[in-house]
């Protein structure tokens, strides 16, 4: 496992920096979704979906409301398990291992695949305790914990704003700060992938820009998957874009997947073009 990781890291460092990649074949696959079907009881929310998410790239899921893009995202760290009656068919491989495999500990999956939610959801605790929450679960204490908290806050571009008030309530922060705190909290457990479910939809434009800058920085170290309603945002930050739409049975299907540049400039599918040019959705 460790050897494989080192191997991957060695390979990826030779890759072009994010945003400059041209062909998906150049990059390493971090998550491979194959023939995925997701059901909520008898309702089929996603059908026959296959997609490859590349390491240290930002992949955006776009599409009209209800097309299943959030469902797809939440399938990647098994948060959908929490929905009563949900069922997953097909495979979701993380570094080649099926995260829905029978012997897989869901807790381990969620540590490796972190998540940032639509609305900032800090715990009603201090800023420090929010970031320390995850590491403490794994027994990190003392000096090591303080360093980890500081490092996570720095990487989330929040350190300078909060360093003097780490023990104040996280709820006193602004919305954008809270969201960056949630990102710091997710980073603190040292995940490999970060899922972001419309992370800016509750934020103002300036806070949104900060988060987008942050995402670009984080993409140098992490694989990022973002769901967004905002096509400009997808165009601005992502390297790859997947366009989803629902069919007549309201089942979500992947319509087109490619580099963001290709999807936004020369979409192959008529429906993608219609959506991107704002003709529906």
């Amino acid at each position, binding site marked *: 496992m460790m050897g494989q990781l080192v191997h991957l890291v060695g390979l990826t460092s030779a890759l072009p920096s994010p945003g400059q990649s041209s062909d998906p074949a150049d990059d390493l696959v971090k998550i491979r979704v194959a023939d995925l079907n997701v059901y909520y009881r008898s309702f089929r929310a996603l059908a026959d979906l296959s997609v490859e998410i590349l390491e240290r790239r930002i992949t955006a899921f776009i599409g009209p409301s209800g097309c299943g893009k959030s469902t797809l995202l939440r399938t990647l760290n098994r948060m959908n398990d929490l929905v009563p009656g949900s069922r997953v068919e097909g495979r979701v491989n993380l570094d080649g291992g099926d995260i829905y495999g029978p012997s897989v500990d869901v807790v381990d999956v969620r540590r490796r695949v972190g998540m940032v939610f639509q609305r900032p959801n800090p*715990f009603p605790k201090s800023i420090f305790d929010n970031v320390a*929450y*995850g590491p403490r679960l794994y027994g990190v204490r003392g000096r090591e914990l303080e360093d980890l908290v500081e490092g996570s806050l720095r990487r989330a571009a929040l350190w300078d704003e909060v360093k003097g008030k780490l023990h104040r309530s996280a709820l006193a922060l602004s919305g954008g700060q809270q969201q960056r705190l949630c990102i710091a909290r997710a980073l603190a457990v040292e995940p490999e992938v970060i899922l972001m479910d419309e992370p800016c939809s509750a934020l103002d434009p300036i806070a949104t820009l900060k988060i987008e800058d942050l995402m670009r920085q984080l993409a140098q170290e992490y694989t990022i998957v973002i769901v967004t309603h905002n096509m400009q945002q997808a165009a601005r930050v992502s390297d790859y874009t997947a366009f989803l739409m629902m069919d007549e049975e309201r089942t979500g299907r992947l319509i087109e997947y490619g580099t963001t540049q290709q999807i936004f400039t020369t979409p192959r599918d008529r429906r993608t073009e219609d959506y991107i040019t704002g003709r529906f959705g």
Partner: protein
Amino acid sequence: MSRSTRWRSGSVRYAWRKLTNAGMLSLTGLAAFLAVVPLVWIVVYIASQGARFVSADFFTKLPTPVGVPGGGIANALGGTAILVGIACTISIPIGVLTAFYVADKPDTPLGLAVRFGTDVLSGVPSIVVGIFAYTVVVLPMKRFSALSGGLALAIIMLPTVIRATEEMLKLVPNDLREASLALGAPEWKTSLAVMLPAALNGVITGVMLGVARVAGETAPLLFTSFGNPFWSTRLDQPIASLPHTLFVYAISPYKDWHAKAWATALVLMALVLSLNIIARAWTMIRQARLGG
């Protein structure tokens, strides 16, 4: 034209509506006033009757026989504390854990049964609970005991604790639960580190309200803890309690015991009332703090 006639008829209707409004407002106001009267009356009357006998000795001395002046209710205070302590020890862990189960699995057969059960249990007359504790504890032990009284009170408290905790757990935003789980926290850890602190407020309020309720219960203690004119801390022996002492004094034929009954009533009422007020003030302060 039609518009102006409609307006005129409207103004008549408006006047009538204003009148109705004034009438109904006075009626509801009167009803509300009448609802407060008994409370104020009880408080004032008991205070005026009981205050004469309440002194420091009353809290620290043991009861005296009929005709002997002085004496207090120290045994009853201690007994009530012990009984309530037993009740809390039994009902808080069971109640809080049950609430977690019900909040997490409301649609399972057991979850539905528990919810229905707590509703029914809170409606069971307390004397019936007393008979139950008598059958289950007193008969096998062959004597009245603090333990049986505490058990009876625990059963009466249980629905309050379950309901208050469950309601609070339901109020914890799902976002927080997901945030914790998404960080790789196991469910038990999420419950303990996120759900319980958020619900703690409700648990404490629920427990205090439950204590306030059972501290004044007499019926379930009549044939469980029974009463004891001496100081006792033994769980397997009969023990005194405030409501039972009040009961014994009140039905006695002696004048000085009647006075003591009033004083005991005052102490009991002050205890229950202040518990209620503290519980509600606590909730309000916590809510204000969370809101800010």
